[in-house]
């Protein structure tokens, strides 16, 4: 702070409190809605204060079978989302770190070409190649499988570039020393590079976990068997009711459950999260 200006400080606090309240507002309403019985939504406006129906709402959705469009237990969807998020995060990191290792510590024909091929993935988000990518998955028989949900999302230029940057900052002397001591490339990778990149791996893992958990379009396309539904993609299927009012308390309970794991990750691992976010945008 440059100078002490009381009114500006007060003004800043007011702005921030307003900002925090606005940001929290929708989630507060969802939380409140999930604590009411379905009858609370029949008339008037949505309730603004909590009620006592929460155990029933959450119990019902977790077990499933509330109504036709909510027959899939949320337990199962949460499990699927968790599997997908963990597989995507682990897979992306594993695949990218070894590619970066190859690109930085070896010299071989087509090295630059390989680098550019990886770079191109940045320019091809799923949304621009939806139909043909879906055709590939269908031809490979990967619909309705964890492999279909995760493998196509595992290529990552961002993660590869991040690890490349990390490796480039590691002093050459370490590798020379390792070679003099007779370490081969994989031993060097395991005993020196991996421990040195620990924090980067952890930070990236946090970001990629959120990325994997929040996938929407891809699971929507790849899963038609309700046994593989993920929670983020599943919400839409619940909210889509043609002839009746949506079951708001249940939908909002599912919404809260869908955002709980990634939000908890951000709040409790804030330092790693910020590092991961800043690192992966360089």
């Amino acid at each position, binding site marked *: 702070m*440059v*100078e002490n200006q009381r009114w*500006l400080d007060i003004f*800043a*606090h007011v*702005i*921030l409190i307003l*900002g925090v309240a606005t940001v929290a507002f*929708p*989630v507060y309403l969802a939380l409140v809605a999930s604590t009411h019985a379905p009858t609370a939504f029949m008339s008037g*406006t*949505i309730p603004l204060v909590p009620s006592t129906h929460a155990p029933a709402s959450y119990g019902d959705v977790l077990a499933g079978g509330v109504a036709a469009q909510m027959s899939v237990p949320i337990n199962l969807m949460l499990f699927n989302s968790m599997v997908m998020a963990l597989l995507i995060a682990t897979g992306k990191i594993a695949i990218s770190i070894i*590619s970066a290792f190859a*690109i930085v*510590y070896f010299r071989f024909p087509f*090295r*630059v070409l*390989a680098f550019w*091929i990886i770079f*191109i*993935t*940045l*320019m*091809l*988000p799923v*949304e*621009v*190649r*939806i*139909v*043909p990518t*879906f055709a*590939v998955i269908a031809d490979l028989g990967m619909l309705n499988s964890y492999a279909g949900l995760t493998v*196509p999302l595992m290529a990552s230029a961002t993660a*590869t570039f991040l690890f490349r940057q990390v490796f480039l900052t590691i002093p050459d002397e370490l590798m*020379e020393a390792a070679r003099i001591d007779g370490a081969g490339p*994989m031993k*060097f990778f395991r005993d020196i590079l991996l421990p040195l990149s620990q924090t980067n791996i952890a930070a990236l893992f946090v970001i990629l976990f*959120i990325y994997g*958990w*929040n996938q*929407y379009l891809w699971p929507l396309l790849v899963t038609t068997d309700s046994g593989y539904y993920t929670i*983020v*993609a599943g*919400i*839409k299927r619940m*909210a889509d009711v043609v002839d009746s009012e949506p079951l*708001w308390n249940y*939908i909002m309970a599912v*919404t809260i459950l*869908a*955002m709980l794991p*990634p939000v908890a*990750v*951000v*709040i409790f691992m804030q330092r790693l999260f*910020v590092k991961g*976010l*800043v690192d992966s*945008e360089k």
Partner: protein
Amino acid sequence: MQTKRTIFGNKGLPYLLLAPQLAITAVFFLWPAGQAVRQSFLREDAFGLSTTFVGLRNFRALLNNPEYLNALQVTVVFSIATVVLSLSLALILALAVDRMLKSAQAYTTLLIWPYAVAPAVAGILWWFIFNPAIGILPYVMEARFGYDWNHNLTGRDAMILVVVAAVWKQISYNFLFFLAGLQSIPTSLREAAAIDGAGPFKRFWTITLPLLSPTTFFLLVVNVVYTLFDTFAIIDATTGGGPAQATNILVYKVYDDGFVGLNLGSSAAQSVVLMIIVMVLTFVQFRYVERKVTY
């Protein structure tokens, strides 16, 4: 390209290490992208039995298609509104937090968590609040201003709904980067200006904002990409592109035409157009973002 001074001599190993990444890229990125390009020059008959090469006709048809031009216009409006709002709100919040000493950490935590909320979930949250029958905001608007909100019927209302949801989700990201940018500006500059008699607003316009321009430019590119692609889930979870195409952004139209309308040639041509847009944006990002914007 940069490597190490000393390297490992193995011949086969690097290919083995690169194999998984390159295999996934080839099968799920390059091949489908190539198919999209190929499809965009073909026309399939109604039964999918035969295809004919039609050259650029799919692209020409797009440019003459009022629905596509409408989607283009909707995308521009949606992008500009979302980017401008989310950037300016995030900047205001970041400036306020930057003044705080003790409470900065607490405010930051309370402001960044929406990053973790999936766009689809953000859409559902606001869809609930704006629900014409029971939502709280339509109720307030009706009671206070006599405005009859209905995003199922009024295009403008639907656009406001998706912009609000998209902005709400993106503020946290922009806020973090603005805050980092602000904290990297040396205090001595602002102190010197203060000694010279510049007030807080003058200092903001002449020192803070110009020094933030690299951050702002970076965020501008990232946000445009966000509004073009990641907001698919918001649209799909709330308005489904309606009413009457009022929120049918380009990326939603590709999906809609390809999967629902099964118009593969046109969908592929739209994919190619989007690919070109991403390429330009990626190029801009890598060419200019690293270098400092002049001030």
